């Protein structure tokens, strides 16, 4: 299933909110010192929408789970297709620009 949509309520079954709440956040919470989360961008998805990437990654900062710098340090973004460098830069930009704890999280599930 290709990642798409921002919220659970978008009924895509693979939204940014779902990715953040069910995959990224638990992985971050279980991360041991010195460990990193490897995110492989091109192991299936043909593309990503900015709504998915913003909600999935920058949402961690926006909802106050973690500040931008430690989040960026915890992520190891990988890809073999050079076209996906565009999405890596986008993820890092969205995280860097997000305002920490600027919004309360309410699940749309």
């Amino acid at each position: 299933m290709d990642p798409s949509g921002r919220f659970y309520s978008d009924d895509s079954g693979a939204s940014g909110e779902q990715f953040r709440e069910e995959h990224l956040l638990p992985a971050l919470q279980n991360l041991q010192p010195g460990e990193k989360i490897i995110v492989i961008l091109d192991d299936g998805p043909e593309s990503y929408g900015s709504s998915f990437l913003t909600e999935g990654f920058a949402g961690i900062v926006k909802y106050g789970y973690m500040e931008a710098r430690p989040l960026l340090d915890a992520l190891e973004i990988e890809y073999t297709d050079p076209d996906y460098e565009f999405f890596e830069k986008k993820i890092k930009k969205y995280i860097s620009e997000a305002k920490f704890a600027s919004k309360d999280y309410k699940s749309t599930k």
Partner: protein
Amino acid sequence: MNIDPSLLQVIEESCHRFGESQDRVLEQMQLITAALQSSEIDKWLIPLGVGFVSAVAGAMAAYLFSRLQWRITQRQNALSAGATELLSLITQLEDLVVNFWLVDASSMAGPVLHGDQLKIKSLLMLTIRYSRGLKSVKMTESHKASADRLAVLVSDIYDLATGDDFESPHRKASNPTAVKLATQCAEARSSVHKLLHF
């Protein structure tokens, strides 16, 4: 032994002529040796050498010029092919995203909505690819400025076209988003046109 005096005279004359011939041959050889040792040779060897070097230099210059010309043509062809493809992609993308953001998602049939979302993401992906591909082509400063501007515009178009409620069935039409996208796509096309002028 009696020898005819006239015969003796003939023999004497012959010997004398032979000696003269020998002297002439020696004289000729001395002249040739002197000529070879003299600067007379240099006088015609130097122009010959200069001519030869000029011919080689001319041939080399012609070769380098045609090679340079070939490389410039190759570069222009690569840039032109990439730019032509980008122009087509941006034109298709513009039509699609502007119309997409002018109507509510709820007014579009499910398969059409989903199809348009996929097409927009695919066209953006190809636009990103071709825009990135331009970076591998050597170009002039003005072309490079146009290519850099194009990369910024493609990035902005991506943010705007696939942001907000892009993939939500609850997405509302947004006239300001459609206008911004139309403007950015027009500017992107203009940047591509600049890449096609040599």
